[in-house]
Structures are given as structure tokens and as C-alpha cells.
């Protein structure tokens, strides 16, 4: 899977280039990897820790062996094993971890990989935008878990203290776990109600991207991109008028 010590362009990556490349890969692939891990483990914190551990390993191994052809799949495999190790250790003490361990060690189904991946991200999106979470929590959690923004980035965009965002996200994750908010894409008959907070969150993400302080150009563009990416993750048949306006607006801004 790995090329010997060479990056995509064929030359041996220097350390600085590797770090940039790793950051970029995580920015692009991280959301998908995390969504898959959450499906596999049923636990956001375990999934995030496992991804973090996999990134640490990647920084080491990719410098030595080069960036793999499919970095997302590589990260998913390593993170899955990290999660497995942890759950195996904890399964003896906690029935919930034992159940997660059992799910994780079941043979992977032979379903269409890209279909599963898209479902994982959608599932995560609907979970982060569950109506049992407050609107502010929905947006903060979605930005953190799906877009991979740091709490500092999110705080800066919404002009609230970092501690506030941190608490909001912790409480939202705790609620998902303690109240057993399920990780699932709603049934068709549930979609009209469940879609509303998702669209509101996407719109908030997109709008925040356009109204971030002028100096934060990168954050602005990234958030606007994320807003559009969210919308693309939803079934095209569910596209709202807001999406059409948003994409036209963004195209104009980029052209300007």
C-alpha cells in the first residue's frame, strides 16, 4: 500500500513537507475516518482518541515509508486496531465496552464501501444535529466532529470564549452518550422533521464562514466549503432553496 519514502509527486518528502501533507490529509480525510470509527465503536470519545493515536503513528511511519496510496483507509485500519486494543482492555470491566468490542471484531460486511462511507457521514451529521441538542450545541459539535475545527477556531468564528465552546461540546457529547442518542440516518417518514435542524446547522456553518472576521480568510473559505460539502452529503433530492442561493453566493464571492 505504501510507496517507498516518496510523496505523490515522486520526490522524497522532507519533514516540513510531510507535516503539511499530513495536516492536509487529515483535514480532507479525518471527518470520514472519524465517522466510520464512530459507527464501528458507537462512541465518539473512543473514536476521537483512536484517530488521534493513528495520526501519531502516521507521522512516524509515513515519514519513513512515504504517504500511502489511500491515506484514509490506512488511518481507518490503524485507528480501528487502536480502538480494538482499548476496548479489549476495558471489556472486562464494562459491559458497554464489551458490546462495542464484539461489534468491532465482527467481520466487515461486503457492502459497497463508498455507500457505507457516505452513510457514516450522514449518520454523524444527523446525530450532531439531533433535536435533543440545543441549536448552539448542534453547530459547535458539527464543526468540531465533522469539520475537524478546533475549539479555538469555532470560538473565534462565533465570538464566544473558547471555554464556552469547550463546555458546549463536552455537554453535547455527554448527552449523546447518557441519553443514548442513536447514530442513525432517520427513516424517510422522520426526515422532514429531522432535516430542519440539519439545514439550519449547515446554513449557520455557511453563514459563519462568510461573516468571520476579515483577517480569518482561511476559516471563512473552509467553513463555506464545509457548508457546501454538508449539503452534497445529503441526498440531492432533498436540496433546499437555501443551498442553491448559497452556492451561487459563494461562486460570486470567489469570483470577486
Amino acid at each position, binding site marked *: 500500500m505504501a510507496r517507498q519514502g516518496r510523496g505523490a509527486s515522486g520526490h522524497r518528502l522532507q519533514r516540513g513537507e510531510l507535516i503539511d501533507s499530513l495536516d492536509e490529509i487529515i483535514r480532507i480525510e479525518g471527518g470520514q475516518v472519524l465517522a466510520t470509527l464512530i459507527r464501528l465503536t458507537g462512541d465518539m470519545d473512543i473514536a476521537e482518541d483512536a484517530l488521534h493515536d493513528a495520526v501519531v503513528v502516521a507521522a512516524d511511519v509515513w515519514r519513513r515509508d512515504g504517504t500511502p496510496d489511500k491515506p484514509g483507509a490506512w488511518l481507518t485500519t490503524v485507528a480501528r486496531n487502536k480502538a480494538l486494543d482499548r476496548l479489549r482492555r476495558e471489556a472486562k470491566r464494562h459491559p458497554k465496552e464489551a458490546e462495542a468490542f464484539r461489534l468491532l471484531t465482527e467481520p466487515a460486511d461486503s457492502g459497497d464501501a463508498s455507500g457505507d462511507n457516505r452513510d457514516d457521514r450522514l449518520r454523524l451529521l444527523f446525530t450532531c444535529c439531533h433535536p435533543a441538542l440545543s441549536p448552539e450545541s448542534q453547530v459547535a459539535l458539527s464543526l468540531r466532529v465533522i469539520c475537524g475545527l478546533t475549539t479555538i477556531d469555532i470560538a473565534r468564528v462565533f465570538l464566544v470564549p473558547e471555554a464556552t465552546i469547550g463546555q458546549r461540546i463536552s455537554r453535547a457529547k455527554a448527552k449523546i452518550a447518557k441519553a443514548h*442518542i442513536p447514530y*442513525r440516518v432517520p427513516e424517510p417518514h422522520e426526515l422532514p422533521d429531522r432535516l430542519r435542524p440539519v439545514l439550519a446547522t449547515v446554513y449557520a456553518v455557511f453563514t459563519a464562514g462568510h461573516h468571520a472576521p476579515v483577517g480569518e480568510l482561511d476559516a471563512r473559505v473552509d467553513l463555506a466549503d464545509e457548508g457546501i460539502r454538508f449539503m452534497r452529503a445529503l441526498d440531492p433530492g432533498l436540496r433546499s432553496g437555501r443551498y442553491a442561493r448559497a452556492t451561487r453566493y459563494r461562486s460570486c464571492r470567489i469570483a470577486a
Partner: protein
Amino acid sequence: MPRYAALIYGTEPTPEDMSDSGKWDKIMQEYFNFGEAAAGVIGGGEALQPVSTATTIQVMGGAKGGDVVTTDGPFAETKETLGGFYLLDCKDLDEAISWAAQIPGAWHGKVEVRPVIDFSGAS
């Protein structure tokens, strides 16, 4: 399996409401229907007598054995009061919400859905 408390809040029926037996019977029938439909998930529950029958006690001094202060009424005077509760055994919050939405209290007032602590360590 997770268990949820469905706490039923609403304005208490007035004496006029109580004497309107048609209205009262209709509500009782609604609760009966819920009990039948949800029999598979109901793990317990009770209807409570009105708050006029409530007594609130507090032990002073922050430790067991202190003075017991007894007061007539609920712990807080609120417009909407706790009228009863169900314990629902459901696989996740979505299922709990969909059952709670069938409790008559949800359309006559509000129902708070809160997970019960599982001391066996499974959550």
C-alpha cells in the same frame, strides 16, 4: 436496555374540569389506550394525586438527623405541576421520544424524558 423516566407535567384540572365527566373520561380513556399500546415498554409508573395533597420536607443542617422542616405543598409553586410518570424501557432516545409522544400528557401539557442512571455499570 436503557430506561427512561417520562415525567408528565401540566396544569392541574380545576374542580370544574373534574365535574365535567365527559372531558375527564376522555382523558382516562386516552391513558388507558396508551397503557395498552405501550405495554411492551412500560416498566412502571404511577399517577400522582394533585399537588394540594403534597408535603415537602427538608432536613436542616446538611446532615442526617437534623431538624425536619415540614411544609404544605410541592417543593416549588409552579403553574405546571408533576402529575405522574412512566418508566419506559427503550433501546435509544428516539424510541423513548416516540413512545412519550403517545402519552396524553404530551398534548395536554409536556412530558420530560430523562434517562435513568444504570448502577450496574452498563452505561
